[in-house]
């Protein structure tokens, strides 16, 4: 095959398209790609809550977990197909988000931070201690979805979730330009002023919370079917911090920031063994340095990135 970018890649794509051959793109690479899309979805959904509506949520991994467990139980215990279990994961997470969000969002910022932290611990404890959810061993036996009469391959799974995520981003963009986006922007800028202007602040906060939770749940469903087994430890406070780091690193409230953050922070531990070892430490230091020195994130205002990348202006010798 004579593709411009090299016959190797050409081989890979042709093998991708024909389902009867083993894909030449290494399984490891595809695994990373799928993981990054899932993290990007998580970071993006947290950004809806934290960036758009300005609410701090320190328990985002709980909705990830609720989605994963819903999907896992519907598939493994009740026998529903992937195409039902994953949307239901989003619905379940959204419903829980509504139930928790409505009382919690009436309280001040600080209380919300504590409450979401507490929610994380409680949800993780529920998954860990209730035998209904499999306890510490979690749930296993969740397979990749089936279509066209056979099991999906990993590259095809990647295409599916990538497509879903792109669709979500398009919808998010439209929403951002609508009156919901305008209301969110006003709440983020100055909550009291927005309230004074007649914006129903609590309602919009709840909408953001539900949307963010639902998308996190969707990511959880994808995660469960990809990993084929889930354990409560994956959805604890540490995971919430990982997601938060990605959002902060990329830039809270920016459109692409969290996705960029997810890509960079998702790829780095994979390419560098030392980084993988000290991953949590690095995330912690990253969170603290970013907020201290670059609160807007990499893609936010006043980022040093444009300054580093900007071409020096050519001046004639002798000119200032």
């Amino acid at each position, binding site marked *: 095959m004579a593709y411009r970018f090299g016959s190797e890649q050409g081989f890979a794509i042709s093998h991708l398209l024909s389902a009867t051959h083993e894909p030449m793109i290494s399984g490891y690479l595809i695994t990373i790609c799928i993981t990054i899309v899932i993290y990007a979805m998580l970071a993006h959904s947290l950004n809806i809550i*934290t960036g758009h509506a*300005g609410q*701090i949520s*320190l328990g985002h991994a709980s909705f990830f977990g609720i989605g994963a467990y819903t999907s896992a139980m519907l598939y493994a215990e009740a026998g529903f197909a992937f195409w039902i279990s994953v949307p239901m994961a989003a619905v379940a997470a959204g419903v829980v988000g509504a139930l928790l969000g409505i009382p919690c969002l009436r*309280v001040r*910022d*600080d*209380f919300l*931070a*504590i409450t979401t*932290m*507490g929610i994380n*611990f*409680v949800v993780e*404890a529920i998954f860990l*201690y209730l035998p209904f959810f499999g306890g510490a061993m979690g749930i296993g036996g969740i397979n990749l979805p089936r279509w066209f009469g056979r099991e999906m391959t990993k590259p095809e799974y990647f295409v599916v979730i990538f497509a879903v995520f792109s669709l979500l981003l398009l919808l998010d963009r439209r929403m951002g330009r609508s009156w919901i986006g305008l209301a969110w922007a006003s709440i983020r800028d100055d909550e009291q002023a927005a309230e004074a202007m007649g914006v129903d602040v609590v309602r919009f906060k709840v909408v953001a919370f539900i949307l963010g939770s639902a998308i996190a749940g969707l990511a959880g469903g994808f995660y469960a079917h990809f990993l084929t087994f889930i354990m409560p430890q994956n959805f604890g*406070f*540490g995971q919430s*911090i990982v997601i*938060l*780091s990605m959002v*902060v690193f990329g830039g*809270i409230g920016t459109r692409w920031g969290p996705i960029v953050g997810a890509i960079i922070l998702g790829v780095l531990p994979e390419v560098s063994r030392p980084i993988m070892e*000290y991953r*949590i*430490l690095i*995330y*912690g*230091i*990253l*969170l*603290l*340095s*970013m*907020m*201290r020195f670059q*609160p807007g994130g990499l893609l936010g205002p006043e980022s040093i990135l444009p300054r580093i990348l900007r071409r020096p202006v050519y001046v004639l010798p002798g000119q200032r």
Partner: protein
Amino acid sequence: MLWQQLANGIAIGSVYALISLGLTMVYGILRILHVAHAGIYALGAYVGLLSFRLIGDFWLSLIAGMAGAAIAGYLVERFLYTPLLHLPRIAPLIVSIGLFTALEEAFRIVAGPHTLAYNARIGLGNFSVGSFHLTETQILILFVTFAILIFLWALLAKTRAGLAMRACAQDPETASAFGVNVSAVIAVNFLIGSAMAGAAGVLIGVYDNQVWPTMGSIPAYKALAIVVLGGLGNIPGTVLAAIVVGLAETFFIGVLAIPFPRDAVAFVAMIIVLMFKPYGLLGKA
């Protein structure tokens, strides 16, 4: 039996009070949720253990733990919180979370992931009257915490410095207009609060005879729950809430034997009280 549980509850409650007071004092002045405070607590335990291994005397290691924690707390305030006060409060909160995460990992990397033993000889001896037993460490806890709390009360209620601190907690701008050195008050707040957390770390380390990297995780959220329960920024409220939580934990688990995770009691108590008193037990709007 009842007296025994009462004593146990008060002992554990007073340690919770030591940890939570630092948190509430910081919130009172800076309106920041100092999540990393639990990291300072664990740091106090590690520094205390290290000094105990080097020096061999318990009381000196307690002082060293408090000093180490105090210095760490001061550094956090000076370099991490104060420069960020102009930003929305989510910024120092995230910095605090990042710091806490990094601290726990640092402990794991430096001191190892295993539990270390802190078996200090205190020299007080046990106390028993009939079926009422107070172990050596419990007597130590009661003694140290009461001493510290009385010192704090005397400082806040009887001295000019305490008056300045209370003024800053109410309204830093006006206090500054009256000539109070607000930066100094903030620094002292952190020093005292962190020293108390360090003391709590050493006490718990000795009580459980265990020091491990994530020992701050549960106190982190428990102290937050206690602080909210007592009323954010309210010092007597926090002490009261801490004792209440300590007693509740002991009674629910020890007396009523409900199969309920012990550490969830604080969180549940917080939710219940918040439903009736949204600003905490003694909090005001």
